[in-house]
């Protein structure tokens, strides 16, 4: 299947809600990406996490098999270093094959409970070539 997506994605509004209510892991508050790899080969992801007041941490290395989707909770990343909850962060996601990345947040602690989702920002190739 023809690959769809981009090799470089960014999320600038990361902030994992601290409080959770309800049965876990389904209702664990979280920031999450869903990564779709339509290509026939595994996608190797390298994620760097950026903070407001200290150097970026990474790479976090994750693999998404070919023709599969994988959800990655930022809460669960611990190598090389666990992300703090309740702190602003940004993420840069680089893949060695084109993938589609969608960001979502589930906040089960605040009232009212809410969820948001949005496409991540994909790097555009300003010279017009295909990515």
């Amino acid at each position, binding site marked *: *299947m023809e690959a*769809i*997506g981009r090799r470089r994605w960014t999320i600038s509004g990361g902030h994992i809600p601290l409080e959770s209510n*309800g049965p876990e892991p389904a*209702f664990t508050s979280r920031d*999450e*990406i*869903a*990564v*779709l790899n*339509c290509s026939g080969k595994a996608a190797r992801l390298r994620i760097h996490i950026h903070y407001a007041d200290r150097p970026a941490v990474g790479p976090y290395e994750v693999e998404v098999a070919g*023709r*599969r*989707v*994988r*959800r990655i909770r930022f809460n669960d990343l611990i190598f090389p270093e666990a992300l703090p909850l309740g702190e602003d962060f940004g993420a840069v996601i680089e893949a060695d094959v084109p993938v*589609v*990345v*969608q*960001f*979502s947040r*589930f906040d089960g602690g605040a009232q*009212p*409970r*809410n*969820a*948001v*989702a*949005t*496409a991540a920002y*994909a790097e*555009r190739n300003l010279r017009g070539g295909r990515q």
Partner: protein
Amino acid sequence: MTHAIGSRRWAIADGYIPSSGASDDPALVSHESACILNTGDTPAKVEVTLFFSDREPAGPYRLSVAARRTVHLRFNDLDDPERVPRDTSYASLIESDRPIVVQQTRLDSRQPPHALLSTIAYCQE
């Protein structure tokens, strides 16, 4: 004549249909939709392929979107070639022979208050 706006290849990476809802009211059942708009003058033939985390993709699911019409495709209702599993992560690749626009919406009514999310899907330029 209306200008056909959009793209022919779209993807929604974050698909999920919660299995239960707070009510039997169809409007309040947890559901997920791909809202497809065809602004062109020609019907769009659309194929949807679903991807999963632990098995081969399913599909294609075929539908048509008439000229200057919109179809709110409820993933809950798809059953040919197979039903979309509940409580399971999936992603969708939506391919059309004409430019279309795709917006994802999900209602999660498992716990009150309900959570509604909506976003434009990713389109290949």
